[in-house]
């Protein structure tokens, strides 16, 4: 079997591994620092954005997705898509049962 059939096997260079490592450590520092600043509802979204950035770095470089067959990335991302649906619908549902949904009308409160 010839080498050209190996087009999807990628060897990451040590330099790349270390650069990603530094970025991940920096991301961790950034998340912790950001959590110490009170930005109201923005905090959770900023935190999630940084965490997702770190997750993307791990997936692309440490998990070789960048050089992998696109179908593998598709399989993995589909999990996040279904997770998004799962969380999204659960949140939409529970939002319909909020006690203050109709202003001034709270039958569950027992007067």
């Amino acid at each position, binding site marked *: 079997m010839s080498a050209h059939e190996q087009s999807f096997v990628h060897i990451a260079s040590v330099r790349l591994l270390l650069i*990603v*490592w530094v970025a991940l450590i920096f991301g961790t520092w950034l998340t912790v620092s950001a959590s110490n600043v009170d930005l109201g509802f923005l905090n959770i979204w900023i*935190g999630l954005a940084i965490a997702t950035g770190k997750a993307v770095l791990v997936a692309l470089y*440490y998990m070789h997705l960048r050089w992998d067959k696109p179908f593998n990335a598709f*399989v993995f991302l589909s*999990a996040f898509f279904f997770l998004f649906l*799962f969380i999204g619908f659960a949140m939409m549902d529970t939002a319909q049962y909020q006690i203050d949904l109709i202003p001034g009308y709270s039958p569950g*409160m027992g007067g």
Partner: protein
Amino acid sequence: MTENAHLETDGLAVDHHFENADQQYQSAKLGMWVFLATEILFFGGLFVAYSVYRLNHPEVFIFGHHFLDKSLGALNTVILICSSLTAAWAVRAAQLKQIRMLKGMLLLTMLFAFGFLGVKAVEYNSKWKHGLLWAREYHPHVDHEEASEILITKEDFETGAEEGVVEDVTALQKVGDGVLAETETVLIEEAPAAAPAAEANRSTIAPAAEGPPGLATQGTEESSEKVIEVEPANAQTFFSIYFLMTGLHGIHVLGGIGAFMWLYLSARRGYFSTGHFTRVDMVALYWHVVDLIWIYLFLLLYLIE
């Protein structure tokens, strides 16, 4: 960057149902990615529980996160990131048949994994000692050994007390975090009288999208001297979710250690000298997902404000 030319897959054992080594490798990889997708969804159920409870009872999460040590959580995040680096490096070593490097990286990865579990054990132990457990097991208290020394009142603490007492408090702070020590004393004082009252309050407290008024403004940040917050109803929910999520994650870390041990033994037997790096690659992929999940757990459990 790509060093594909170095890879020699000729002469590798190929099972009879595969065309060639490349197809065999790609099939293994696809199977692994499907497995990882199911892992994400496995944890997904717990993330849904987290989201729904946090949307309905934000005060429980704000209260509960004070009992988690942010710096220990950050330390564990750094440990796992380091282990991800060594795992990725192990894959590279296996691809290039650098067996000594491979063994070293596998050992380092296991070392980091044990370090992670060690820190986790310290955290769990502190929760256990103070009764900060799941559901019906949630009975916040000062543990018996410490009780005699720690039974100081809030006034003692605030007026400075004698040096001896202050030292005891700092000793307890080392166990978990400072907040723990202070809240415990207050909980003890109030416990007998407050218990039935809390039970009665439960039904009248609104699930409140905006949270019970006052919680957010009462002594947060700066005033570490003050008692943080009144314990909200159903505070145990936070600890149920905390233990389920970190526990399931911890089991995955244990499984990872087992897998790395298997790789190490394979390396010692010379399995990877033939250029068969698939096993290392697959285990590393699994390990990176364990790392990914922790990145989110750290954010969602420890860094609530």
